[in-house]
């Protein structure tokens, strides 16, 4: 029955109690008990969701203005399906265009080769003309091979851009917040120096940060044109805003985790006269990991929320920009598409949260976090 234990452990660590009754059922445990579990974790939510959809459909029939109406669940679903279908159509078209260009390049190369051979046989001015022709054909072939489709990003592209931006911002925040938090937790002096900054900047909304992040990036990238820099400017502005907002929960929790390491562990370190580095890496860091990860989980959640707003303002490609553009377009499908985006944003937020719960539970020595 080893797979049973392993799967149950996984459900617990991943914060997915929804699968637990199914695992137990498959392992041949008491059926009645498991059906109670399924009713609780599966049937009840399904009923709740069905009720919600019912109310939504009713509201969609009621909330109607001259120019627009609240999209119904069906309209939202259709708009979503269409967005995804559009993505695949677009990619298919891009692929075909690319194939065509590659074919063109092959043709150019063949012609260039023919001209080259002709040039070898010829002499004088004729030879030079043939060689020049061959060279220009080769150049055309290279540019054809390097062709990149320049179609507008689709909904799915925007999702990936957003996820990439949030992870990059979150990574930056973690790289800054964890070392600072460790220092704050270990040294009351350092903590005293940093506390005013934390207290004042923590409650600031991302939208206030954004223009400041904007000028810093503009200053840094002054003199470069688009495409010359490793990062896209708008991407960096969004990521920096995410970083500045998701810094604080990790910083505060890391400080708390490091400062509240069990006194007994510190006593052990004192008795053994561990060096500063040993104390940090063998005792303080492992002991404060659960709280640190709890902070990182909040940080990632905050980052994802902030990103949508930052994307809207910075006009960085991403879900926020998608929602904003749709709103500006004001087509018939606008509101259904926005409703679908809301759903997608929520689902991605959920997945990000589960990922962080998983990591937190991995390092929490057998005290899983409440999901």
């Amino acid at each position: 029955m080893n797979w049973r234990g392993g799967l149950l452990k996984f459900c617990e660590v991943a914060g997915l109690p929804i699968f637990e009754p199914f695992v137990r059922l498959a392992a041949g445990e008491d059926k009645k008990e498991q059906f109670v579990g399924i009713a609780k974790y599966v049937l009840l939510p399904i009923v709740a969701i069905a009720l919600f959809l019912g109310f939504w459909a009713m509201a969609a029939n009621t909330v109607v203005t001259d120019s627009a109406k609240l999209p119904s669940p069906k309209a939202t679903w259709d708009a979503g399906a269409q967005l995804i279908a559009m993505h695949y159509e677009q990619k298919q078209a891009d692929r075909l265009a690319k194939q065509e260009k590659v074919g063109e390049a092959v043709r150019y190369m063949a012609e260039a080769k023919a001209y080259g051979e002709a040039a070898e046989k010829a002499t004088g001015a004729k030879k030079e003309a043939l060689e020049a022709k061959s060279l220009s054909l080769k150049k055309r072939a290279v540019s054809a091979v390097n062709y990149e489709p320049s179609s507008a990003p689709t909904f799915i592209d925007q999702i990936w851009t957003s996820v990439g931006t949030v992870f990059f911002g979150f990574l930056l925040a973690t790289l800054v917040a964890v070392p600072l938090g460790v220092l704050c937790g270990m040294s009351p002096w350092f903590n005293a120096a940093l506390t005013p900054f934390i207290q004042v900047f923590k409650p600031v909304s991302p939208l206030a940060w954004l223009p400041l992040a904007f000028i810093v990036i503009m200053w840094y990238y002054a003199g470069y044109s688009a495409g010359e820099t490793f990062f896209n400017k708008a991407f960096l502005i969004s990521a920096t805003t995410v970083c500045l907002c998701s810094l604080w929960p990790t910083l505060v929790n890391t400080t708390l985790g490091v400062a509240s390491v069990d006194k007994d562990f510190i006593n052990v370190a004192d008795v053994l006269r561990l060096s500063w580095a040993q104390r940090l890496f063998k005792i303080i860091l492992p002991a404060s990991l659960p709280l640190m990860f709890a902070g990182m989980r909040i940080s990632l959640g905050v980052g994802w929320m902030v990103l949508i707003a930052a994307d809207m303002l910075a006009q960085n490609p991403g879900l926020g920009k998608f929602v904003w553009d749709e709103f500006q377009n004001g087509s018939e499908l606008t509101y259904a598409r926005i409703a679908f985006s809301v759903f997608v944003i929520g689902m991605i937020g959920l997945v990000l949260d589960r990922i962080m719960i998983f990591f937190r539970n991995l390092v929490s020595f057998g005290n899983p976090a409440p999901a």
Partner: protein
Amino acid sequence: MRGYVELFRLGKTYDTHKGPVVIVEDFDLNLERGEYVALLGHSGCGKSTVLTMVAGLNPITTGGVAIDGREIDGPGPDRGVVFQSPCLMPWMTALDNVMLGVNQVYRNASKNDRIDLASYYLNLVGLGGSLHKRAKDLSQGMQQRVGIARAFALKPKMLLLDEPFGMLDSLTRMELQEILLEILVRDKVTTVMVTHDVDEALFMSDRVVMMTNGPRARVGAIFSLPFERPRVRADVLDHPEYYEYRRKMIQFLEEQDHRKLKADAEAREQAKKQDEAEEQQVAEAV
């Protein structure tokens, strides 16, 4: 007489918002090399304060502690400490927990030698089969065994036990008491154990130091026990003087209790009188 371990007029004063409170005062004690001394007293009398001061984990207010002719200055691996809670790093294996100290003390030994040493002591406490289990997966009793192995593996000059079996059930407690004594037969380490269990003190120690109740706790009485080593529980219990010693110790503790009750009653009486006097004054003033 100079002992191997000397506690000289050891005292501890805590500053509280009501002013300084003297917990322990003029605590004098000499231990011979290899001796096992138990500190016995009521909860909160300052036994643990004395022990943590000897361990160097608690700053000494007055007096001093010398081990092997050198005064202590802060904590160090020459004094192995076993705390009441096992204090293992839950994310490390049993072996790694012991290795944490061994690596620190035997920096020059080869890695294999260090692992051998740590495994040797884990074997002695009966954990030979659980070297690579994580501490969080061990039972409380097993964790405390690792704690004991960790303390011995440092080859300390002195062993300090702070109610080491206090959190265990009585069967596990007896088992661990015997294991500890067995190891002490091989490695004769000078030991101070804090306990409030009279039978534990009688079974384990050479001398039992009875502490008076705090504040201003000090040595109240010292009993030298005549039981032979190595100790066998049945023999100790059958010893003609066992119950005599036990009676005396419990009598001492009860006297301390009475004294405390009496002192408390007096304090209450005093406070009452003061209140009455104040009320009188108020009444007169009105």
